[in-house]
């Protein structure tokens, strides 16, 4: 009994001290995801566009539809990104158009991901006839050529606004995610921890929500980001070829007007380059976030993904089957870890 008390005292004292010391790093760990350079860059760009989408119409210098006498002017102080063939301010068009792009991307991404998860996880988990039916359904959607279908549907709806386009993209774009989700669920539901939960008498919905879904987070997130990219591209394409109303401003609409008025031939680079850059930037941001997720989700590799620069500096290449060995660099400068160790050894 006396021993037990010493034990608790011994344990408690250093723990209190340590907790106080590592308070700050621990808080930083909560935002571990943000320590990844790729994810941080991607999220930064997304945040920028997000703010632009919210406040765009208020901060735009001009009304994007306002016709003026400055026809096809190159960038100047009054029109930072120049004007188009009817004298409309292109910067304002881009700023105002951001909202349309992001809203469509988000709605399409969410709807396609939700559909994909529901169909995929259900198919994978229930198996049997239900699986067959749902798989057949997603296979049908997989072989339908998406863009022509979107063009037809969007063309049939005369009042097709951004939300309609987004829903059409969502309804046609879920099948690939569903297929991936089903495959992963099939593998997960046979694992021991799911079997154990089943043996514990957990309900099916809890098995799906608490045991299977958390393991799918990475795939769902990656699929979502991919779908958003696809949705933005589709929407820009639709606007570019003039399927959606040209009065709804988005980056594709700008490209539509630029194309129809021979911007390239006239040398009006300021008309199409900024819009194109914005599209590329948004796509890049989403891809970077995707990379960040990839490196973040595996708890085992997280340390590797988080510290790529440190690993390079210390010449560590983590691989399975060939444990890295820390060496003193050839220039004789002892490594941080090695120094600490030698001094400890000398002490003892």
């Amino acid at each position, binding site marked *: 009994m006396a*021993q*037990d008390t*010493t*034990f608790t005292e*011994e*344990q408690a004292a*250093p*723990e209190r001290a*340590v907790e106080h010391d*590592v308070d700050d*790093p621990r808080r930083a760990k909560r935002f571990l995801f943000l320590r990844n350079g790729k994810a941080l860059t991607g999220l930064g760009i997304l945040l920028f566009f997000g703010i632009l989408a919210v406040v765009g119409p208020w901060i735009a210098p001009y009304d994007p539809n306002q016709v003026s006498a400055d026809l096809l002017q190159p960038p100047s102080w009054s029109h930072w990104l120049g004007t188009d063939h009817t004298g409309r301010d292109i910067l304002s068009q881009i700023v105002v158009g951001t909202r349309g792009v992001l809203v469509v991307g988000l709605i399409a991404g969410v709807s396609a991901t939700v559909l994909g998860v529901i169909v995929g996880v259900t198919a994978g988990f229930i198996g049997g006839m239900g699986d067959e039916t749902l798989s057949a359904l997603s296979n049908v959607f997989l072989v339908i050529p998406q863009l022509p279908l979107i063009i037809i549907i969007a063309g049939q709806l005369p009042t097709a606004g951004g939300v309609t386009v987004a829903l059409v993209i969502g309804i046609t774009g879920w099948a690939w995610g569903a297929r991936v989700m089903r495959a992963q669920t099939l593998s997960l539901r046979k694992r021991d921890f799911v079997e154990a939960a089943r043996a514990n008498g957990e309900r099916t919905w809890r098995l799906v929500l608490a045991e299977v879904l958390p393991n799918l987070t990475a795939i769902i997130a990656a699929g979502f980001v991919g779908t958003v990219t696809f949705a933005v591209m589709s929407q820009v394409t639709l606007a570019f070829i003039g399927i959606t109303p040209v009065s709804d401003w988005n980056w594709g609409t700008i490209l539509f007007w630029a194309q129809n008025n021979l911007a390239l031939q006239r040398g009006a680079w300021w008309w199409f380059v900024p819009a194109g850059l914005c599209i590329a930037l948004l796509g890049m941001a989403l891809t970077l976030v995707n990379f960040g997720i990839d490196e973040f989700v595996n708890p*085992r*590799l997280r*340390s*590797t993904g988080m*510290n790529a620069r*440190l*690993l390079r500096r*210390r010449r*560590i290449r*983590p*691989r*399975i*089957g*060939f*444990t*890295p*060995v*820390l060496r003193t660099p050839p220039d004789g400068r002892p490594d*941080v*870890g*090695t120094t600490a*160790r030698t001094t*400890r*050894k000398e002490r*003892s």
Partner: protein
Amino acid sequence: MTASTLDVPAPTGTVGEPVLEIENLSVDYGYTDDATHVLRDVSLTLHRGEVLGLAGESGCGKSTLAYAATRLLPPPGLITSGSVHFTGRDGQRTDVLRQSDAELRASRWQDTAIVFQGAMNSLNPVYRIGRQIADGILAHRPGMRRKEAWDQAASLLEMVGINADRLRDFPHQLSGGMRQRVMIAMALALDPQVLIMDEPTTALDVVMQRQIVEEIADLRERLGFSVVFITHDVSLLIEIADRIAIMYAGDIVEDAGAQDVYRRPRHPYSAALLHSFPPLRGERRELTGIPGSPPDMQKMPPGCPFAPRCAHVTDVCRQVRPVLGPTALADRGGREAERSVACHLHDADLEGIDGTLPADLAR
């Protein structure tokens, strides 16, 4: 219990030259400054023809030591210092930690073979076991014909007591114990000099455990390889091992002959570990177990890691970390001089240690 029930002529005292020498091996998990130091300056020598047991509680670094010595630690494992020297049959000494990938790949299985934890799940379910054994042989012996490799696989199976016509079976057609034997046969396929067995019998029933342990002892007699046997089953270890290294919180705390550890433990942890399982013979005694649990490796207290749980703890134990050294009874001579222990109680020069060991450590 004990070796007297098993007719293994344990080569006592004299052992061959070293075949695997681990010196001051340090291993971290994690690459940053807050990495966990799991092994700190661990040294261990395996001699030719010896069965060395690694024992200790879960999470005390037994497997980490074995996998670090073979460079099989998965990320985020990192070897921060030390050396691991392997001596071949031709007497050539190589540092495993400095080998290139190709050298490492060539020496694996050929020099050092491993039977993994849960070995019976290491077989690929879609290939016949004969093919899996033959594939491994062919990978290291490029000139060999497939037929020869299959013949060799057949004789390997016979060697571990499985009928050669099971060669065309798939893994699911074998029982757990048979799969385990197949893995052992596979590990021995290239006549390795060191066989590392990581809890090879943990998932098996005692009868099967016994068969496999006898099998290994018998094969070792015939083929003359050295074995590193990792387990937390100390009673099993006393039967099979020549020498036992007891590990605690990433340190080797006692390194001595198996019978010596069993009959005359010198470290309080070894003594406590031995009191945690019942002996087959001898007087009845109460099983005590060890109060508390191993320390958190991320927040190691200064001093001896076992101090908070030790029955003989002194003030110096809480401040100074003990290192492996001779026992206080080394002047008894004989085998006593060969053992080493990491405990301040054996260091009479220290302040607060009077040099007399507690009775249960001085038998």
